[in-house]
């Protein structure tokens, strides 16, 4: 065992063998505790929550204790923040859904067609709402939709019972929520707050490593795009983690503001870096320009600072000093450049302006990171929340699909006249709503369907071999434990989570004991069959009705990106930049979720398009901000014309509009430069300089877009 050879005594050998053994055991134990141990604790927490809720529901004499139990399974999520968040939104959705059901049943008592149309409309609207939001907010909409169906459909024949049904449902969901929140928050909690900090740190390291790799030209353009896609997904993930952590005790509002600011600073730095990278790439690709050699040491300076920021031994770089160093380096380079022809001068000016901007953005980003990491309280100016964006076609499609599912199910129910199909209908409504906010709805429904099919025989065995023999509560727990524990164990494995959810939900629906148990084999089997049929119907609906309209579908994302760019040129300016940034990244993150780890060539093309539009949109917004504050002048008119032409281009991206933008940009150059020369105010000078850079980057990215542009590079000299 021990590598030490002969000279060591026998005693020493034995001791070191024991030490190796102990350390091996400790390693194994730690590995087990981090993987299987966590999962077993999770299962234990779920079981504690479920059976406590069931017991309380029995004790309080509620009508259908299984709803309380089901709620605890639905809330079984890995971190306590996520549980609390989902609990809150579940309560909200249930209240809204119950009220809607009461309203509909009161409006159309015993009028099945009208009631179904109303319910279908309601479910459709709620599912549309769900598609527009992310995470648990979206769940709240889904829930409001299907809770109305859950209450409305059973009370079709007995409208007077609807109030009781609604109150029972609300009470039981409330009980489940309280129990699940307490159990998951208090027993061995896993804090979302800590996970958010881990994400923040990982993001910071990856971004800085990415920047220094790109600056040293070690990444191919395709990899750069992939990285941008991943970062967009990261931004959305951090936002959802933050939303969960918000509900935890250890999370303060100041922290929320800092996280928002961190995400925003990251997006700004990322966009600037993309523009900088693209420009550098172009410069390198062009014929030997003096700019490249002059810029090289400045890039090296930044890259060295980035490396020092990451490595532990070296003292962290002072970003304030780096900016002054960079400014003096730029001044030296400018004198070295001397008087050159116009295009070279413009290239140089743009390159250094972008470098300075990137150093500024990076300084802000790093400062925010250190503030977060050291838990310092920082005054964050104007932190704005994240804005999600879903392509409207997809929003509409998911609503239409949910409504169709319900109407179709109702038609089948009416036609077959099988009483248990009511249950099936509820299941169809639930899963067609739930799956519509998933990027791969069919995969999700398949997982649940497998879980249901797996759960059916197990539930039968549990019910008729074990539960039937239980004559008190501990025995009941013992009888029902295996199937639920199996389901929860599967849920804790990300790959089999769908199956696990299927097993637990199925078992909770059919096994869950009532206050007055009655064992009816036929009813039990019919119920099982109806549940499976309901999910199967949802599967059919998703594969038949608008199968291409799923979240993150690349064509929809691409057209939504163009519309966002148009919005950047048209929409009111207030917080526009922030909103635009968020929405474009959100669209990209949806694309990432749908495309998976290896996106196709078309998906990559959409990413490239999105990044270009992001850059163009930023330039347009900056120009519009400048136009907004300046007095009428030739420069202002020229810039306004540029914005107008760009808007036309975003509306119809073709050669003609592209050429119009290019000529408008070229015409805007001289008046802006003249205004810059005559300007005294330093702040305004900076803005004019920024506008020039924007014009240049619009020009170059449009040239990249249209390889056969009618205007040559030489015209740029004007």
């Amino acid at each position, binding site marked *: 065992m021990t590598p030490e050879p002969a000279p060591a005594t026998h005693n020493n050998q034995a001791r070191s063998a024991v030490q190796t053994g102990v350390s091996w055991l400790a390693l194994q134990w730690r590995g087990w505790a981090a993987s299987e141990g966590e999962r077993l604790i999770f299962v234990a927490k779920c079981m504690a929550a479920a059976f406590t809720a069931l017991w309380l529901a029995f004790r309080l004499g509620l009508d259908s204790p299984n709803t309380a139990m089901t709620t605890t399974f639905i809330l079984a999520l890995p971190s306590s923040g996520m549980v609390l968040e989902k609990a809150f939104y579940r309560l909200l959705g249930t209240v809204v859904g119950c009220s809607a059901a009461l309203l509909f049943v009161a409006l159309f008592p015993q009028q099945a067609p009208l009631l179904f149309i109303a319910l279908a409309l309601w479910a459709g609207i709620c599912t549309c709402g769900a598609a527009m939001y992310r995470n648990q907010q979206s769940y709240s909409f889904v829930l409001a939709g299907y809770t109305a169906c859950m209450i409305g459909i059973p009370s079709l024949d007995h409208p007077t019972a609807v*109030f009781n049904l609604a109150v029972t449902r609300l009470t039981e969901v409330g009980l489940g929520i309280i129990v699940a929140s307490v159990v998951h*928050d208090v027993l061995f909690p896993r804090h979302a707050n800590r996970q958010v900090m881990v994400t923040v740190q990982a993001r910071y390291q990856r971004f800085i490593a990415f920047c220094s790799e790109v600056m040293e030209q070690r990444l191919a353009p395709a990899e750069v795009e992939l990285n941008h896609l991943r970062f967009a997904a990261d931004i959305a993930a951090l936002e959802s983690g933050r939303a969960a952590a918000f509900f935890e*005790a250890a999370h303060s509002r100041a922290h929320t503001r800092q996280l928002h600011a961190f995400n925003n600073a990251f997006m700004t730095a990322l966009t600037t870096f993309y523009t900088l990278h693209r420009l550098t790439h172009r410069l390198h690709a062009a014929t030997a320009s003096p700019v490249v050699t002059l810029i090289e040491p400045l890039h090296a300076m930044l890259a060295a600072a980035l490396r020092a920021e990451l490595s532990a031994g070296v003292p962290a770089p002072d970003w304030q000093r780096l900016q002054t160093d960079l400014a003096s380096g730029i001044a030296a380079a400018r004198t070295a450049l001397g008087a050159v022809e116009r295009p070279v001068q413009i290239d140089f000016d743009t390159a250094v302006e972008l470098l300075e901007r990137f150093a500024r953005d990076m300084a802000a980003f790093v400062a925010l990171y250190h503030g977060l990491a050291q838990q310092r309280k920082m005054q964050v100016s104007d932190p704005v929340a994240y804005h999600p964006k879903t392509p409207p076609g997809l929003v509409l499609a998911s609503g239409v699909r949910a409504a169709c599912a319900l109407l179709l199910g109702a038609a089948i129910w009416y036609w077959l006249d099988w009483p248990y199909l009511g249950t099936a209908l509820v299941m169809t409504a639930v899963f067609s709503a739930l799956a519509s906010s998933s990027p791969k709805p069919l995969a999700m429904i398949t997982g649940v369907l497998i879980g249901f099919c797996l759960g059916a025989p197990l539930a039968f065995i549990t019910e008729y071999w074990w539960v039937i023999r239980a004559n008190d509560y501990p025995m009941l727990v013992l009888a029902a434990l295996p199937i639920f524990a199996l389901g929860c164990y599967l849920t804790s494995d990300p790959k089999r989570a769908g199956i696990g959810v299927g097993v637990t939900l199925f078992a909770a629906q059919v096994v869950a004991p009532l206050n007055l148990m009655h064992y009816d084999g036929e009813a039990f089997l019919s119920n099982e069959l109806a549940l499976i049929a309901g999910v199967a119907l949802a599967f059919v609906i998703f594969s038949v009705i608008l199968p291409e309209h799923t979240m993150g579908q690349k064509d929809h994302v691409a057209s939504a990106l163009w519309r966002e760019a148009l919005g950047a040129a048209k929409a009111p300016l207030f917080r526009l930049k922030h909103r635009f940034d968020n929405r474009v990244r959100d669209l990209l993150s949806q694309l990432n979720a749908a495309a998976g780890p290896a996106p196709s060539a078309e998906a990559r093309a959409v990413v490239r398009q999105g990044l270009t539009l992001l850059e163009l949109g930023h330039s347009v917004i900056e120009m519009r901000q400048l136009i907004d504050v300046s007095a009428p002048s030739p420069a202002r008119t020229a810039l306004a014309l540029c914005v107008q032409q760009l808007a036309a281009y975003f509306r119809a991206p073709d050669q003609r509009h592209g050429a119009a933008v290019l000529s408008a940009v070229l015409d805007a150059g001289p008046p802006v430069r003249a205004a810059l020369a005559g300007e005294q105010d330093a702040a305004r000078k900076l803005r004019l300089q920024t506008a020039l850079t924007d014009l240049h980057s619009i020009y170059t990215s449009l040239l990249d877009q249209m390889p056969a542009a009618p205007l040559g590079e030489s015209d740029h000299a004007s």
Partner: protein
Amino acid sequence: MPREIAIFGVLLPAILPLFLASLLIQGALDWVLGLAGVYRRVWHPALVRLCLLVCIFAALIGAYYQ
């Protein structure tokens, strides 16, 4: 003191509004304690929060039914 209150003819336990009130009070207290950074100094913040809620709820019930 009534044990149950009637809302549209449905009898609800009177402690339900008390519970909602204690949730509100707890939310306000939570905000203050979070601002003061108390939760970062305790071993189990969630447990502290739960205990506070129980105390507030119990105090409200005690005050109502005394």
